[in-house]
């Protein structure tokens, strides 16, 4: 029982981080119809910025703040300077159709090599801001620590803020309208261009937050967030890629699944299982667990 509770709590911790990454991917997908593979790059750059701030000031919370702001700005910059140029040059042909995806891939490569040039490729670590020893439950320690609790609370706060913005504000309404039908949104007087950029801003902030939250439990290197990107993508696909609640549910389900497999079967099977879940959910539930009825095209 104690073991199961511990595993579930670890699963929720992992799941919150996957959810944040999935949210970042879904936000960009809704605004620009591109899967932003550069998200891993954006997050790694902001995580290194956080690392640098922690080293200089020792204040973890300040580092998170800076990373999130940097992530938001970076997202805006990429949308404004790269994506807009790309869509202006839209062209016929086999590559033109996949040009945005290829461009995000190129961007991932560029950011990663720039990070490598500045900080080097060796492994580093971020000291956790709070205790990593497990809580005691019925006199026995759980694998679940204060750090994990902080991760869950942090992710929950971001999700509450997002759902408030999307459900209760005019900005959220514009974001939802432009995602649903850009043409009609434009006719209704929404300036779709800036709204797109805001989608990237939110995504950049969420990705940056995920990067800083995951790293104290892990190592930091120019490609240490690749796996997070993949798990975020799988979570987003489970959730249907369109829906923000879907991304959160997908992330949590994936996190709990990963924790259960790691604890009760074998770490070796984590990746193959995740890959099988991805393929199965693509084939069997192409609209996601709680996705819309629209067929997945484009």
């Amino acid at each position: 029982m104690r073991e199961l509770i511990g595993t579930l709590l670890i699963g929720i911790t992992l799941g919150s981080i996957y959810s944040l990454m999935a949210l970042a991917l879904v936000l960009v997908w809704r605004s620009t119809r591109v899967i932003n593979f550069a998200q891993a790059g954006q997050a790694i750059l902001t995580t290194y910025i956080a690392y640098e701030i922690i080293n200089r000031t020792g204040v973890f919370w300040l580092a998170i703040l800076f990373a999130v702001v940097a992530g938001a700005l970076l997202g805006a910059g990429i949308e404004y300077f790269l994506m807009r140029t790309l869509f202006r040059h839209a062209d016929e042909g086999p590559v033109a159709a996949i040009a945005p995806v290829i461009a995000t891939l190129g961007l991932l490569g560029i950011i990663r090599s720039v990070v490598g040039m500045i900080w080097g490729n060796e492994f580093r670590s971020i000291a956790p801001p709070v205790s990593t020893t497990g809580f005691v439950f019925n006199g026995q320690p759980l694998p679940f620590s204060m750090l994990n609790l902080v991760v869950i609370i942090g992710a929950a706060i971001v999700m509450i803020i997002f759902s408030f913005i999307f459900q209760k504000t005019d900005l959220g309404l514009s974001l939802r309208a432009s995602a649903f039908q850009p043409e009609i949104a434009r006719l209704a007087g929404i300036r779709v261009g800036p709204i797109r950029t805001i989608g990237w801003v939110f995504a950049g902030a969420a990705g940056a937050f995920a990067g800083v939250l995951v790293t104290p439990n892990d190592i930091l290197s120019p490609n240490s967030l690749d796996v997070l990107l993949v798990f975020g993508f799988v979570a987003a696909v489970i959730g249907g890629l369109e829906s923000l609640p879907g991304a959160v549910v997908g992330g949590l389900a994936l996190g709990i699944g990963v924790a259960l497999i790691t604890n009760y079967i074998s770490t070796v099977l984590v990746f193959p299982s995740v890959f099988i879940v991805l393929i199965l959910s693509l084939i069997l539930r192409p609209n996601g667990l709680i996705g819309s009825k629209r067929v997945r095209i484009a």
Partner: protein
Amino acid sequence: MHKLSTKKAFIAYALFGWALVLVADRVSELRVYQGATIAILTLAIASIILLTGYSGQVSLGHGAFLAIGAYGAAIAQSYWGSPFWFTFLIAILVSAAFGFILGFAAGRLSGPYIAGTTLALAVGLPTLANQFAFLGGETGLVYDAGSPPARFGEEFTLYKWFFWIAALVVLISIFLLRNLLNSRFGRNWKALRANPTAAALAGVNVASSKILAFTISAGVAGLAGALLGMISIVAPSAFPLSLSFTIITGAVLAGVTSLLGSMLGAVVLVVVPEIADAIAHRLGDSEKISTNLPGFIVSALLILTVLFSPNGPAEAMRKRREAHAKH
């Protein structure tokens, strides 16, 4: 542009191969090694050209198929003791089998989903090698082409032997691919890429054509992977995510639709690290810069190409010529 007949093309390939052998005799060891790399990358890029340029599907993780091919070949050699030439066949078959499975899923999806799925495969697969003991972990598996036959003489180095094998295998494969792409299958794929609905109405079986393209492309990539394993090592570090990016960059630079362009793309990919080395040397030989500069240049080339001539420089020049001719 008229197409050469199969017979003439065969003669052209044979002459080109002969020229390569002559050149390989006269250049330094390093150049021979680079020549082998170019040949292998040409084949890897050709597999993307078949997949993306012809059947219109995307794979961001073709490095995974190279890895599968290489591991398949190495396992065939070290565990089953199969003769070296036969391991190439194993590499093709194993990788094609994986390609079939993935193509089966991919046939039902489009664009972003298959892009993400293939990327997931490329990220996750190398980590698997670390976790299963029979895959040899970080150090990988032994995969040995053997030493060159004694009758070639003392002068005949191992790298030259690698180059001969790579060049021969790649020339034969590209020749076969060329014939395949000029056949009914190639035309079906092109029709599929241009307009799936019209292709289906014209009697092309969309699902099976797409799966076939994925399977063959994966098989070709697997063969390239076995060759890559031969000249380097069969270990996770030989098949990083950046390998997939590199291959895609080569294909995009090559213009994705021309098999001939794949060699051009491969040459660029081999020249870039040389240039990067020279620049890093100028900048004072910092290790951080010299290890990351090649990746930076390749990625920058990729972005610049999709921004300014997404269908490749050759296509852009052709368009400009046509526009010029109109005036």
